């Protein structure tokens, strides 16, 4: 069976599992909503108007931690027997690519919901809106794809949930800093020409991580 067909079937499986037990998705959305309200209670209520810098940083911190929570379940909750059975049916590359794509889509939904909540509660000081949306899309995809591979690594160790954050956050920081700067540029209303280099770098780094995931995942998944 071809790779893209396998990926498609696995994506379908992920979506079915998610849809049958909606509590995880609902839980994530509530998590984001809670985080937004805590930010408002902690900072927004005290100040008349929060500065764009703080707005930006808080938004991305919410996304980062939501993504740790969302992605961590993709390998940690899988039973050992099931994964062994799966590797006899499909190629490991298909497994990791389908997880990356699925988590990226999941993070896009969560980021969008977070942005809606966040702008309702704390306002939206963004001037270049299209650049901000583009940054949000690229950033959510990049962060979730790095965390997918980290989740696969952490799933093999003891107390994986803690390890997930410990291993993932230092790895994701270069991407995170780029995203923060890009979205700050968008908030300040700078045109695309200013941040085109950073966009290129974000995409390039993301491509490196996806390629490394595809190359390295077979070593994790299969015991040889």
């Amino acid at each position, binding site marked *: 069976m071809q790779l893209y067909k396998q990926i498609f079937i696995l994506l379908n499986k992920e979506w079915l599992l998610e849809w049958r037990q909606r509590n995880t998705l609902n839980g994530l959305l509530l998590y984001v909503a809670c985080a937004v309200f805590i930010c408002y209670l902690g900072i927004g209520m005290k100040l008349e108007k929060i500065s764009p810098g703080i707005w930006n940083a808080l938004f991305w911190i919410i996304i980062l931690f939501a993504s740790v929570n969302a992605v961590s379940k993709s390998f940690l909750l899988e039973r050992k027997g099931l994964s062994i059975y799966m590797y006899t049916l499909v190629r490991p590359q298909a497994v990791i690519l389908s997880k990356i794509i699925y988590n990226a889509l999941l993070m896009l939904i969560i980021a969008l919901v977070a942005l809606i909540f966040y702008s309702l509660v704390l306002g939206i000081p963004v001037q270049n809106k299209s650049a901000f949306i583009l940054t949000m899309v690229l950033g959510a995809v990049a962060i979730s794809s790095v965390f997918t591979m980290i989740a696969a690594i952490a799933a093999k160790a003891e107390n994986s949930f803690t390890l997930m954050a410990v291993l993932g956050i230092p790895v994701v920081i*270069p991407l995170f800093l780029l995203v923060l700067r890009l979205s700050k540029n968008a908030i300040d209303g700078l045109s695309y020409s200013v941040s085109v280099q950073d966009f290129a770098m974000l995409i390039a780094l993301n491509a490196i991580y996806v390629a490394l995931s595809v190359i390295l995942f077979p070593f994790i998944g299969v015991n040889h």
Partner: protein
Amino acid sequence: MNAKDKFIQNYSWKILSFLCVVIAYTVGLVMKVPNDAKLNETIRNLYYHVPMWFGMTILLIVSLVYAIKYLSKPTAENDFYSSGFATTGVVYGILGIITGMFWGAYAWGTPWEMKDPKMIGVSIGMILYLAYFVLRGGIADTQQRARISAVYNVFAFPSFIALIYIMPRLAGFSLHPGKEGNPGLNPKDADAQMRIVFYISTVGVTLLGVWITLLQIRIKKILFNLENQQHNI
């Protein structure tokens, strides 16, 4: 191979390392340095602080190479090399931070200036490798530990390079010397004599790191063999 060749192969670079470190560290304290109003005598820290970073980068790259080697040919030896070089690399990084703090205390008036992109980058880079050791500690099975940690070593390396070498360049400002936060050393900045001592120090410190690592690996190998013997009995 006769005994003489073996002696040269085993000991020549160790002697070179010893001589280089001794020469650079004593000459560095004694030799006259150019009079600079800002740095004054603290410029001597060039011989102690900067070689640590060169040493760290080289040791961590060697660790990466052995991690890749482990993935293509999983032997216990490759794992010892990979983790051993990572350990020494982290120790060098911490030594680099400490020597830098001494320099900063006198040159900038503060040992830790958080705005500096290089300091942010290197502190996160160290966390990255400490997480590598936490990961190793979290896996009981030795083969699984070696394989998973090799995968993490390879996966984390682009981030490490981005933190140490790319982010400071993009940040465009730094308290460190070099054009616009450029992490490389600009040879034109340093005095010719100082540069020679600096290169000697770099060679010596790097080789010393390799030596320390090889000793550590030998201990690990002996322990590993002892354990295997006990199992066989």
